[in-house]
C-alpha cells in the first residue's frame, strides 16, 4: 500500500532530526500522529473518490486505524531517562535511551523516569530563588541543622546528599516506595543525627569530617536498601560544620587563644635567641679583655724588665757614677718642669718661716680651666 510506505517515511527516516534536537518532548508525539492521520485520510480520499467500493473502503480504514494504533507504540527515551514498560500495569522490561517500541495502549504503557540523573538534597539549608541576584541563595534552616552530639553539645551541620537510582533498581524506585525523595531526605537526617549523636563535638568540628560523611553514607545506604528503594547514595558532603551561632565567638576565641599561646612562646623564644648570644658575645668580650690585660701586663713587665736589665748592665760597669747621673738627670727633669721655691730656712729648724707661708695662695695654683670633677679624677690616677 502506497500510503503505508509514505506513512513510514517520517517515522523511519525523519525522527532523528527533530527528536535529537527536541530536549523536552517525551514519548509519542500527538502532533505528528494527527499529521500522519490527516495525510492518511487524504490518501484514502484520493483512492476512494467516488465511494464505489465501500466494503473495501471500510476494510482499508480499519487496517489504517490498526496500523496507526500499532505505530503509536514507538517512543523515545531521552539520554538521562530509562523507559519502564508496563504490560497491563506489570513491569515487564526496562529499556535504554534511544528509540524504542512498546505494544500500543492499553496493552503496554511506558514510564520515563530520569533514572540516570544524579539528584541533590540539601539538609540544613534551602535553596531559594533570589530574583535580585538572578540566582539561587542558601537560607539556613536551623531546626534541620542543629544537632545534639554525644557529649551533649550542639553543632550546626549543613550537608548535601547526592543520590541516583541504582542501574538495576529503577523498578524498585518506582514501585516499592511511596515517596522516594522524601524518604531519602528523612533517612539522611536521621542517619546524620545518629552518627553525630554517637561522636563528640571536637572531632566532628575538626578531623572526622570524612569519617562522618562515609558513616552517614553507609548508614543511609543500609536503610534504603532495607526498604528496597532502588536508591544509591553516591555522596554525602558536609557543607558547613560549625558550633551554633550563639557560641561561635567562644570557639573562635579558643583558636585565638591557641594562637596567642603560640605567639607568647615564639616571643619568648625570640627573646632567648637574642639574650643568649648576647651573653656569649659579652663573655667573649670579657675574655678578650682579660687576655688583653694579661698580654699587656706580661709585655709591659717584659719591657720594663728588659729596660732595667739594660740599665743594670751599664750600672754594674760604673755603679757610683751611673747612680749619681741617674739621680741628677731625674731631678733635672722633675725640677725643670715644676715651679720651685728655694728657701734657706737655716741650718736645722726651718720652722721659722713655715708659719708665715701663704699656703692659701700656693695651693690653688691649678690650671684655671679645671672644674670640680677633674681634680678628684686627677688625684685618683
Amino acid at each position, binding site marked *: 500500500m502506497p500510503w503505508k510506505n509514505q506513512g513510514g517515511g517520517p517515522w523511519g527516516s525523519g525522527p532523528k532530526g527533530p527528536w535529537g534536537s527536541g530536549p523536552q518532548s517525551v514519548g509519542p508525539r500527538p502532533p505528528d500522529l494527527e499529521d500522519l492521520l490527516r495525510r492518511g485520510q487524504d490518501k484514502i480520499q484520493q483512492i476512494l473518490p467516488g465511494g464505489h467500493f465501500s466494503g473495501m473502503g471500510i476494510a482499508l480504514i480499519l487496517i489504517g486505524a490498526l496500523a496507526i494504533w500499532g505505530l503509536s507504540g514507538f517512543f523515545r527515551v531521552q539520554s538521562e531517562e530509562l523507559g519502564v514498560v508496563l504490560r497491563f500495569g506489570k513491569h515487564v522490561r526496562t529499556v535504554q535511551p534511544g528509540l524504542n517500541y512498546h505494544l500500543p495502549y492499553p496493552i503496554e504503557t511506558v514510564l520515563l523516569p530520569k533514572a540516570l540523573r544524579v539528584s541533590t538534597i540539601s539538609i540544613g539549608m534551602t535553596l531559594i530563588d533570589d530574583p535580585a541576584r538572578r540566582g539561587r541563595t542558601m537560607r539556613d534552616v536551623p531546626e534541620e541543622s542543629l544537632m545534639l552530639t554525644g557529649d551533649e553539645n550542639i553543632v550546626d551541620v549543613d550537608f548535601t546528599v547526592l543520590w541516583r537510582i541504582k542501574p538495576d533498581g529503577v523498578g524498585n524506585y518506582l514501585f516499592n516506595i511511596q515517596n522516594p525523595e522524601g524518604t531519602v531526605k528523612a533517612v539522611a537526617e536521621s542517619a546524620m543525627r545518629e552518627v553525630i549523636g554517637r561522636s563528640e563535638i571536637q572531632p566532628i568540628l575538626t578531623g572526622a569530617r570524612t569519617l562522618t560523611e562515609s558513616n552517614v553514607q553507609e548508614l543511609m545506604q543500609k536503610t534504603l536498601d532495607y526498604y528496597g528503594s532502588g536508591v544509591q547514595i553516591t555522596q554525602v558532603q558536609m557543607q558547613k560544620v560549625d558550633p551554633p551561632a550563639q557560641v561561635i565567638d567562644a570557639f573562635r576565641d579558643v583558636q585565638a587563644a591557641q594562637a596567642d599561646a603560640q605567639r607568647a612562646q615564639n616571643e619568648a623564644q625570640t627573646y632567648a635567641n637574642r*639574650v643568649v648570644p648576647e651573653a656569649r658575645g659579652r663573655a667573649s668580650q670579657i675574655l678578650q679583655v682579660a687576655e688583653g690585660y694579661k698580654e699587656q701586663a706580661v709585655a709591659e*713587665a717584659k719591657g720594663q724588665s728588659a729596660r732595667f736589665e739594660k740599665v743594670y748592665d751599664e750600672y754594674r760597669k760604673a755603679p757610683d757614677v751611673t747612680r749619681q747621673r741617674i739621680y741628677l738627670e731625674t731631678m733635672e727633669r722633675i725640677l725643670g718642669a715644676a*715651679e720651685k721655691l728655694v728657701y734657706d730656712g737655716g741650718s736645722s729648724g726651718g720652722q721659722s718661716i713655715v708659719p708665715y707661708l701663704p699656703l692659701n695662695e700656693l695651693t690653688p695654683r691649678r690650671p684655671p680651666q679645671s672644674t670640680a670633677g677633674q681634680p678628684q679624677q686627677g688625684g685618683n690616677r
Partner: protein
Amino acid sequence: MRSPVAGVASLLLLFIVLILGYSSVFTVAQTEQVLLVRLGEPIRVVTEPGLNFKAPFIDTVISIDKRILDLENPSQEVIAADSRRLVVDAFARYKIKNALRFYQSIGSIQAANIQLTTLLNASLRRVLGEATLTQIVRDDRDALMVKIREQLDKEADGYGIQVVDVRIRRADLPEANSQAVYQRMQTERQRQAAEFRAQGNQKGQETRAKADREATVIVADANSTAEQVRGAGDAERNRLFADAYGKDPDFFAFYRSMTAYENSLKSNDTRFLLRPDSDFFRFFGSSSGKFGGAAAAPKQ
C-alpha cells in the same frame, strides 16, 4: 430483507460482548494489590500485577497500595528516664501486608496514618521514657528504634499493616535547655581559651627565665675565666719583675724610685719648696758638696 434486523441484532450482540468482556477483566498496577469483593464478600487478593479476570458486574475491585508508605510524625516532647526533656521527631515506614484485614479493619490509608500516629506516639513515649537521654542520643539509639518498631509492628498487625522501620529523625533538647547547653559550651570554651593562654605565658616565661639563667651563667663563667687569665698575667708579670729586679735589689730600689719620682712629679702643676741644704743642692753652696741626704719636700 432481514439484513437490517440481523445487522442491528449483531451490533447489539457485539456491544453486549464488549461490555461483558470489559467488565470481566481488570489490571493490577505494579504498585498495587487488589482485593476482589463479590457482592460485599471478599473473595481473593491479587498481589501479582498484570491482567486479571473476574466475574462481570458482581465482582468489585478494590485497589490497595502495595508500596512502602510514609508516616511523618510531628515532633513532640518526651521525658527520658533521667527526667530530662527531649524533643523527638520520628518517622515510620510501613506497608499493607494483609489487604483484606486492612480493608476490613481500617479501610483507607488516611485512617491508617491517623491510627499509626497515635500508636507511634504511645510507643515512643513508652520506650524512650525507659531510657536515659544519653542512651537515646548516643548509646542505644539503634536498639531503641528497633524496640519501637517491634512494638508498633505488633500493634499494627491487627490492621494488616507491617511496620518496616521506625527512625528517630531528631532528638534535640527543648529551646530552654538548649540555652543552658550553649552557656555550658561557652564557659567550657572560655575555660579552654584561658588555659591555652596561661599555658602559653607559662611556657614563654620558662623560656625567658631559662635564657636569662643561661646568659648569666655564660657571663659568670667568662668572668671567672677572665680573672684566672688576669691572675696568670699578673703572676707572669711578677715573675718577670722578680727575675729582673732580683739581680740587685738595692739598685732596683734606687732605679725604681727614680722612675716613680719622675712619673709622679713631672707634671707642670707640681711645686717644690726646696731647701738649699738638700742633696740635690749639694754643690749649690759649695763646690765640694758639703750638704748631704736632706729631703726635698714636695708639695702638690
